[in-house]
């Protein structure tokens, strides 16, 4: 089981801020494919992968990063702090 978190418009499109998921996905990209296959709202949120950033256990990684034994994967749009 991993915690999957969503922020900003990713959160709004998917309609929830976090959920627990049972998955065998090896990489972040695998997890995105799995989620996108579930329901349209996920497919919509992940329709433009260039607009998606991801953090595994609170560290920014690329979409092809392995998930390994991570406890938390977070998806969000490019950050706009400052």
């Amino acid at each position, binding site marked *: 089981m991993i915690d999957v*978190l969503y*922020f900003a418009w990713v959160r709004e499109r998917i309609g929830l801020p976090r959920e627990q998921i049972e998955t065998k996905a090896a990489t972040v990209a695998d997890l995105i494919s799995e989620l996108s296959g579930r329901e349209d709202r996920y497919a919509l949120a992940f329709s433009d992968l260039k607009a998606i950033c991801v953090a595994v256990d*609170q560290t*920014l990684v690329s979409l092809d990063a392995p998930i390994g034994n991570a406890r938390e994967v977070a998806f969000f*749009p*490019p*950050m*706009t*702090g*400052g």
Partner: protein
Amino acid sequence: MAVRVQEQDFDLAAEITGFGAGAGAVVTFTGIVRNNASGNLCEMVIEHYPAMTKTALEGIEAEARTRWALSDCLIVHRYGRLKPDQQIMMVATASAHRRDAFEAAEFLMDYLKSRAPFWKKEITAQGDSWVDSKTADEDALKRWQ
């Protein structure tokens, strides 16, 4: 050296009282909510990723300290609902030399803009919209690579 993430406002004067004692140069940057091009901004909502934010800011600060000789360094970033003209965030840097203080402050800002987990949403009477990231902000990072 400090990093703070908070909902409440901050007082720049209080933050830099005694800051960088013994340093010759202190630079501060303060980010303030600007109205949008249409002039109809009601609120700016800043969302963040609590479990990650402080760690990300500390990482950016640590990187700045490896690159420049800083006698002090501070990052304060707010989240929540802000009105136009309210303060969003600040950084301060102290060094013996002005160039180090300036460059470190610019570096912190460039990384904060697109590598710290904050997202801004503009609330207007005509609707809400997430602020898009800017190509210019991503380009700004190339200066430090």
